[in-house]
């Protein structure tokens, strides 16, 4: 069962365009993390959002956590070829004490063409 649905699955755009990637779930998460992964590498953490409605900005990247803490979006302004990669969202749940698990979506493969 895929608890986190990411869309779109694939995205190919031209340099300078804007884009939004979505991460949706029917479950409530304690926090949600966004990662970027390049081929043959491990995921690199971009941001963690914790509070419902929270908006975080990282240069040209804007992350938003839904009010109900079930969904999130990543918006990239003026995309550059260096933004190319697999963008993964991951929801964290604490189920008492130190029980903590990350559930990942399948990812959005972004290609930014020069």
């Amino acid at each position, binding site marked *: 069962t895929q608890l986190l649905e*990411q869309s779109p699955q694939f995205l190919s755009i031209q340099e300078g365009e804007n884009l939004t990637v979505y991460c949706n779930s029917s479950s409530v998460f304690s926090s949600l993390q966004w990662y970027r992964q390049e081929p*043959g590498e491990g995921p690199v953490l971009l941001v963690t959002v914790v509070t419902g409605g929270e908006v975080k900005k990282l240069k040209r990247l804007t992350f938003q956590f839904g009010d109900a803490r079930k969904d999130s979006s990543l918006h990239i302004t003026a995309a550059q070829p260096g933004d190319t990669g697999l963008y993964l969202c991951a929801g964290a749940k604490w189920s008492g004490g130190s*029980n*903590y698990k*990350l559930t*990942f979506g399948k*990812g959005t493969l972004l290609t930014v063409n020069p």
Partner: protein
Amino acid sequence: DAGVTQSPTHLIKTRGQQVTLRCSPKSGHDTVSWYQQALGQGPQFIFQYYEEEERQRGNFPDRFSGHQFPNYSSELNVNALLLGDSALYLCASSLELTSGQQETQYFGPGTRLLVL
């Protein structure tokens, strides 16, 4: 400050064999989690180790086992390999806070396992 390291980087095995993958956590981290990432998929949680014990486990068979050492490094063992075990195996480390929660997990580069 050393990040998460994994070895080997690549590995080729045949069906039925056994494999051991290794992970050294980020300096100062005490919790290690293992993930399996099949081609075109997001990582799937295998299990997590803290204080040398398996604390949580995902939906993986008993062929997948692990160990954590006193220096917090960890091993993932897979017995009776199947073709479907071919994947990128990722290790992530984090720090258990005094509140019982954890700081963010940081991932290693992974071990690419191919089962023929």
